[in-house]
């Protein structure tokens, strides 16, 4: 890209009914929000030019997110607060942007640097104490690996690698809330819901409704090129 561009990082939430969007649908909706906002965006080269925009790690259908992010390259500088304001007006409520700031061109892509994801999983099992869920979850994690079927193939996740900080369970009205951190990498991204399903199966409540929220995305090292 010959012309100067400004890389705007937009943090947004995926909440309410819009947690049922697929990643592609979220991408599409955010692109359209940028267009509606009237921001002047850079365009990729080639036969089929597209808006230059890059997203963080995908969220599955049904999973909410409190601090998701995308980078969009602008061809005209707009004060971050102004950009945020126009984006908020142009975006459906369930994908509302919370923050916009410019980041350096040299910084790695969101997908590459945001390797840790914090989750909260609400489990609706009124009559199962947090103790038995914690115990079942502890058993799964202690077993070392979790095999999951995805589109006909079996994939094994090494739980020590995927769950660097273990999992914590606390009681809330009507059920329990599990907090955990997932490390993403070349092996993929363990879906917290799948982990909880396995624990719930062991705890004798395989069909208990769960609601998953990714509360934060962060880099692995504490010291990064933020700001």
């Amino acid at each position: 890209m010959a012309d100067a561009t400004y890389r705007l990082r937009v943090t947004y939430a995926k909440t309410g009914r819009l947690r049922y969007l697929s990643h592609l649908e979220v991408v599409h909706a955010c692109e359209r929000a940028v267009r509606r906002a009237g921001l002047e965006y850079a365009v990729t080269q080639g036969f089929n030019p597209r808006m230059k925009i890059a997203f963080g790690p995908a969220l599955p259908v049904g999973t909410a997110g409190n601090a998701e992010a995308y980078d969009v390259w602008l061809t005209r500088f707009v004060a971050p607060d102004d950009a945020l304001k126009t984006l908020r007006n142009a975006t459906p409520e369930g994908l509302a942007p919370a923050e916009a700031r410019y980041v350096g061109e040299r910084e790695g892509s969101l997908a590459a640097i945001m390797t840790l994801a914090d989750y909260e999983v609400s489990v609706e099992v009124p009559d199962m104490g947090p103790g038995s869920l914690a115990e079942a979850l502890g058993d799964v994690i202690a077993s070392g690996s979790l095999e999951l079927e995805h589109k006909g193939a079996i994939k094994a996740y090494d739980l020590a690698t995927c769950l660097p900080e273990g999992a914590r369970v606390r009681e809330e009205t009507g059920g329990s809330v599990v907090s955990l951190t997932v490390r993403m990498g070349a092996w993929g991204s363990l879906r917290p819901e799948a982990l909880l399903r396995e624990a719930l199966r062991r705890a004798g409540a395989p069909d208990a409704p769960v609601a998953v929220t990714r509360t934060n995305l962060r880099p692995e090292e504490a010291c990064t090129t933020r700001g």
Partner: protein
Amino acid sequence: MTELWSRVEPLLAHVERPTRYIDSEFGVRRRPDASYRAALLYPDTYELGMANQALAILYDILNGIDDVAAERAFLPAKDMAAAMRAADVPLFTLETVRAVRDCDLLGITLPYELTCTNILEALDMAGIPLYASERGGSDTLVIGGGPCAFNPEPVADFFDAVLVGEGEAAVAEIVAAHRAALADGCTRAETLRRLAQVPGVYVPSLYAPASEGAPAHPREGAPAKVTKRVVADLGAYRSPTCPIVPFMDVVHDRANIEVLRGCTRGCRFCQAGMIYRPVRERSADAIVRDALAQLKCTGQEELSLTSLSTTDHSQIEEVLRRLSHALRGRAVSIGLPSLRVDSFGVAMARLVGEGARGGLTFAPEAGTQRLRDVINKNVTEEDLLATVRTAFEGGWRRLKLYFMLGLPTETDDDIRGIGSLVNKVLAVAREATPPAQRGGMRIAVSVSTFVPKAHTPFQWEGQLTLEQVRERQRILRESMPRKGVELHWHDAEVSFLEGALARGGRDLARVIERAWRSGGGFDAWTEHFVLRRWLDAFAAEGIDPVSLASRSRELDAPLPWDHIDSGVARAYLAKERARALEGVVTPDCSFEECTACGVCSSLGVDVVLAGDHRG
């Protein structure tokens, strides 16, 4: 009225593509406090229904009426329908998630014959009695409209009323009549009698159906003929500037601007060409203004200039120049849905930069000049080959050609003519393509079966039987080039059923109900279509579908749709039929002089061109 979301949401974790059911898109209108509520239902899934421009227009107009709310409803996919039935959740509207049966009015689009079982599925899921005759005072008023309203008889028993023709002005009148009837405490029968007085509104229960010997007969003051509604000047209605922007990757996911309505090229097989007359163009200024406004409001990355023949617009070149200039560098593409088979069509496609990415689509429809003259498809082999040469020399590598089998008077030679025409196209395309690039050439040929439709010059003709279709497909396959062409067939069984339904009468309601009760639904989706189910349903009702589809009608015999007046005179259709059989072509009245089809004189309208002339 209760909000059903808390009962819908638990189902979403277990179904495919929950986005279909969550509403919340940009551009949604929510008017929960309106006292009059209309549900607009497209009888198929969300991703098909959201492509329908008529619904977007009516949604806009109805939500613009004081104290009226219009909400969308679609047929849930089979997995969601099963989950809803198991959880006893009725069909709901998207915007406020309330039961469709709690709405005052349910408007159902009639896009295509094969959606008829979906209409029953929707009514049943809504908890609304299937037959209008079973509905009582407080039941939702069920009104249909769309292309199939021009022979509404097969589904007429399911509707309280059907709007024939264009809805822009008529929907407000229907709503006003219904509100007045509600305010006056009218019985259902009285309400229907009043609705029958709204021009263009057909109330089936007020007509004794047509039979072999006698035309449909009105009673209780209903008009003898229901004349289609037509908007004299499209300029009186702006294109929607802020239509809903779907999250889901729907069919035709783009900004749509209707640049003109109607087509008078006069192809004799084409129902759209007859029922949407006359040609009415929007002005270049209005098109560019509305297109840019819609792109700005929706953030869509693609703009489509829609109509039956967009490159016929008298100012199309000006429109495309202005739009491509305004959209430069924004990664917004412009699409033309249909192209003329001439160098002008290719030039227009080049103007919007389609060259590098898209393919071109042309519809010669028949393989010989003789048969193209019969159907009044004014395209010659020279036109086609020259156009293909221009396109491939200009960098296009993908081409799609549409043909039909079973057109009236078709012989084996006409079928072989398709093969030889495709051979010539292939040779010209190869010649015009540098050898190194020939690997990227894609030539697709799509062949459908001709289905005679009501209100066309071929409405009296017989359709090929399934056996005849298979035999002719064999001949075609043998005549096609061995290599270099992808050949696609439209499912012959689907066309057969379409033919049986397209020209049927009131007695088909029971057949449709049987087919639906035996598990039919989504019949327009090949994977859900089971011909056996339909054959059994026809047999059980003692109706012969082969006769319905394949017998020729006498020119003077009553037809089930005789009381529906498209404005095109029956005598004109008969004259066009006679000219077809003589192989005489008829010119296009939007380019040349009037051909006296009757639309303008009988409906008090005229051809509206934005520029001085077409050419």
